[in-house]
């Protein structure tokens, strides 16, 4: 494998939709972000682990996280640094607001052209949108090969990687040249925990706008004394984009209507423990590909 392998992990800060309470949705049917804690998108953590495990195996490899979001998205860059990432890039600015997956992948690809990594790893999809489009779109925009549903990078060769993919009925092993984009499945190894010493070292890491918001804070002073603690932050202009393709105007996706799905009791079926009932259920589940 090449020396100084440069890995970038694409990550997103998302509202925690896994434990939703009554107030998780607004009356208008949109996500009530203030009621849900902002977290590191779970599959992006699997992606980070895949990157960190490569870093463990390849001497000189570095791992940086790239995220697009508001100032508070710097939290997930710090979180990644606590878990072993070398640093991160925050892509932040009003121009990016309202991006759908197309505009997001365009903005990310602009930043990636500037970073010029050897390998891009992303989570399969985010728990707020569930589209699984951003990773593949980034690959298309950069003209790179992509491996989706990756479960494990099993082998590192001179200029290729061997990747195990998790498919519906089994696994597939592929060999892929780098540079490439890999999107990682939730069935991949879980991310390692935050490390005590790294937490104490990087808890003061701040992005430019965070420093500007409170330049007199103890953390800001530490960053001033130690520039290595600064998280790189780019506004739109700094990644050289076509403004037409950014944010809301670069987003063709329009939400037409949102409906609350309420499961009715009539959708439920009552089964006895008799053999023929169980048999019928098995047949139905296999037919619908729920099982097997």
């Amino acid at each position, binding site marked *: 494998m090449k020396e100084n392998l440069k890995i970038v992990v694409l990550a997103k800060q998302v509202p925690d939709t896994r434990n939703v309470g009554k107030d998780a949705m607004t009356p208008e049917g949109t996500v009530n972000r203030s009621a849900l804690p902002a977290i590191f998108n779970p599959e992006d953590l699997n992606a980070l682990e895949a990157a960190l495990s490569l870093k463990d195996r390849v001497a000189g490899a570095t791992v940086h996280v790239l995220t697009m979001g508001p100032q508070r998205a710097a939290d997930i860059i710090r979180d990644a640094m606590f878990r072993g990432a070398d640093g991160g890039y925050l892509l932040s600015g009003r121009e990016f607001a309202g991006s759908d997956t197309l505009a997001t992948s365009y903005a990310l690809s602009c930043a990636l052209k500037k970073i010029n990594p050897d390998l891009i790893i992303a989570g399969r999809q985010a728990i707020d949108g569930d589209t699984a489009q951003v990773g593949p779109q980034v690959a298309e925009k950069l003209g790179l090969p992509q491996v989706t549903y990756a479960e494990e990078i099993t082998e590192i060769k001179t200029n290729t990687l061997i990747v195990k993919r998790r498919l519906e009925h089994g696994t597939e092993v592929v060999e892929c040249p780098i540079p490439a984009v890999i999107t990682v499945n939730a069935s991949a190894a879980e991310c390692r925990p935050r490390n*005590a*010493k790294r937490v104490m070292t990087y*808890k003061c890491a701040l992005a430019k706008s965070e420093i500007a918001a409170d330049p007199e804070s103890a953390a800001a002073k530490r960053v001033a004394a130690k520039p290595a603690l600064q998280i790189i932050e780019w506004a739109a202009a700094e990644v050289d984009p076509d403004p037409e393709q950014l944010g809301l105007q670069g987003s063709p996706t329009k939400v037409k209507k949102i409906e609350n799905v309420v499961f009715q009791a009539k959708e439920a079926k009552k089964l006895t423990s008799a053999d023929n009932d169980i048999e019928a259920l098995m047949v139905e589940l296999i037919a619908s590909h729920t099982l097997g």
Partner: protein
Amino acid sequence: MANFFSDNKDLQFQLKHPLMRKIVELKERGFAEKDLYDHAPQDFEDAMDSYRRVLEITGEVCGDVIAPNAEEVDHEGPRVVNDHVEYASGTVRNLKAIVDAGLGGLTLPRKYDGLNFPLICFVMANEMVARADASFENIWGLQDCAETLNEFASEELKQKYLPLVSAGATCAMDLTEPDAGSDLGAVMLKATWSEEKQTWLLNGVKRFITNGDGDISLVLARTEEGTTDARGLSMLVYDKRDGGVKVRRIENKLGIKGSPTCELVFTNAPAQLVGDRKMGLIKYVMSLMNAARLGIGAQSVGTCEAAYREALKYAHEREQFGKPIIRFAAVSEMLSNMKAKLQGVRALLYETARFVEVYKQYTHISHERSLEAEERQEMKFYNRLADGFTPLVKLFSSEYANQLAYDAIQIHGGSGFMKDYPCERLYRDARIMNIYEGTSQLQVVAAINAVTKGTFMEQIERYAAAEYTETMQPIVAKLKELTAKFTEMVDHVEAGEKEVGGFKDFHARRLVETAGHIIITYLLAREAGECEDYAAPACVFCKLAEGKVNEAYTYTMHSTTEDVALFKGVEAEC
């Protein structure tokens, strides 16, 4: 997605104690390392922030990794393969998570790659780990062996071993032998100096050694040939990589089944001397034991927490006669008592940890420079309190762990007797806690001096002199009444002891427990002044304490010196 720190307000409360400021200043030596290490704190607030963050990580590892593995670890257990221990696969995953999280060497100095955290944080981490899986606490908690090395070993040994512990090496303390359990003076494992190899060589057998195949072992051995008592024993350190120790078997235990309890055979195993010859039992094991007793205190409180939570959860879920069983008075009374005991003994645990902490820090500072007269006095003050409170916390917490685990099963009813719920594991795990590191009976022996020499009474008077809120006044009044009874009991027993030897031993447990009940109630009353959440547990515990003290009072005051002979009568039975 559980976090055993974030979900526990009681732990977070203990971390905010006012004495923390002094403890952090002492531990950080006035923040002398702030420019030397990236991860060293700049000031008190920075240090506290780091403690909280790291305890949150610990809580997350406990909730997300260790607790979910606990049942499987209990069933699978460790095995002996080629004379060595192979942990249960869940234990291996736990260790990896702990190492990845960088939680080794929690209290060790930064120059040995440690985190230089106060003992309080280590005790909290231990408690959380035990709540997740008591058997894993045994393995992880043994890293406090490194504290003994840090205190007594040469610089050369410290440089060799302490960074290994910081990197996640596990430890063992090899004390017990088939004929030397509570009576460690009878240890026979032989250490002989080899001129040829320029090392000590160990030969003999150790038994009941927790994590006996750990990476680093502290071994109590007889270096002085021809001796038969404690004065011939020294402490040595053995590195597993050097070889010479075989695991003959792993005990098949009632509980803490994930923790390998080993029988070890030493055959010319090389080892290095820790500190001075002949001081093994007299000085080093005593220090090791005190730390270990505090460790079992933490393990017991963690078990109490787990038992209370399991019981509370089930009492809400289980419905009988058309309502959740928690709404029956008999069940809610049990749960209220469980909660009061849990929070009471936790208050005692952290009070003790603070005493130990200040005293230990002064000890370390005294190795760096000579202490000022005032500091020396303070060190002595806290040392005395630590010596009295350590056996007290071991006694109460381990007995409570058993009581709470028992009650947790009772609340589960028939289901609790089945292996379907975690409470059965807690019940089995708790059973060792009032046995190992000195039985409850031996904790009483260690604590009785604090009764007769006045340490407990002086501290009770200090608590009594403090200020309490209006709502706590009836409790404080009650405590003064109970304290008067305690004084009467002590006088009665001491007078009896002068007449007939053995009278004090006969009543020792009643006296120690009476002091403990009064102290714990004061601690909860004090906490109620800072946070009203503690008012109810303080009131509940006070009722328990009153009952217990009155029972002990009646028994003791109605006891005459003739009782000594009465109870010795059983010796003639066979």
